[in-house]
């Protein structure tokens, strides 16, 4: 009798352990998809980005705000998929100090043509080598898009991510780092 009881309890321990393990992995499989680094403390360099009018914009222009630099391209489907959410996040948090900036690794003309359809409500830049250099200096290691870097109001890089943000993940990051 005691042996049966022991066997049942041990079996239940094993089953519940495996079930808990599996449930956790399943629930967190999405958030594992991309490398999000939080707590990075390096100061962001004051990069220069070519704008669509032939001039340049400097990152220091938005000093004092929480800046999300979202590198994208018109040929990048996951980037385009992420833009409507970024637009909404800019509208939601803009008044509280968030500024999204969208440098495109792309032909400026292609970006100009795509902009009306995308309805982007934050500054957009475009270019080739200067955008690649900006990605490198902000810590890109893959050369893949989308690539986002969150820079706190004091200029520290607080998060980097390749791939699309989940809305909840981005909102939590923003809430945590708003000035």
């Amino acid at each position, binding site marked *: 009798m*005691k042996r049966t*009881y*022991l066997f049942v*309890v*041990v079996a*239940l*321990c*094993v089953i*519940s*352990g*495996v*079930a*808990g*393990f*599996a*449930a*956790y*992995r*399943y629930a*967190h*499989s*999405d958030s*594992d*998809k*991309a*490398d999000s680094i939080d707590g990075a403390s390096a100061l962001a360099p004051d990069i220069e980005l070519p704008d669509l009018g032939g001039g340049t914009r400097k990152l220091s222009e938005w000093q004092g705000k929480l800046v999300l630099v979202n590198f994208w*391209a018109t*040929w*990048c*489907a*996951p*980037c*385009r*998929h992420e833009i409507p959410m970024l637009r909404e996040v800019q509208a939601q948090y803009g008044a509280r100090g968030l500024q999204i900036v969208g440098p495109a*690794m792309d032909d400026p003309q292609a970006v100009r043509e795509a902009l009306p359809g995308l309805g982007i409500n934050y500054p957009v830049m475009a270019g080739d080598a200067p955008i*690649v250099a900006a990605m490198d200096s902000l810590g890109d*290691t*893959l*050369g*893949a*898009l*989308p*690539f986002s870097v969150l820079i706190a109001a004091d200029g520290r890089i607080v998060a980097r991510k*390749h*791939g*699309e943000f989940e809305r909840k993940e981005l909102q939590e990051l923003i809430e945590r780092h708003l000035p």
Partner: protein
Amino acid sequence: MNRILRRLPILLIASIGVAPQTATTAAWPFSAPDAKQRLLAVDEAFQPRAALWQGGHLSLEIGIAEHCYLYRDKLRVEPVDPAGYLLGAPSLAAGETHEDEHFGKVAIFRNLVKIGFSPHAKQPPKQLRLIYQGCAENLVCYPPQSRLIDVVDANP
């Protein structure tokens, strides 16, 4: 023995709590529906191999990592040495049709793509430029890539 048995239910409850903590560090041996897809650097995602000249035929291959794909219409091969070498029309499979949310139906390649040429010239070119572009499924896309490929003459 009775004391141990009385404490076993506590062990059962504790095992439920410990499981998620174990799960954060342990490797998952099975494939969940959205199993982690490791982000790859572009040269891990797409691996061009040497171009081979054999019996008047030139062939190139690009290995494609799991979960990654190359766009058919972005593939290009250009002669570099000699620059004016006439490659002729490429022979390239039709590829797989991929429904893209933003770009509609596009032809793509997975696993491996082979590109062949049958130039009129009797001698192979020395070097080619291979241009390609692709994505990691639902994760990231890579900008157009350009690589110089030496041609290996299999029948020197």
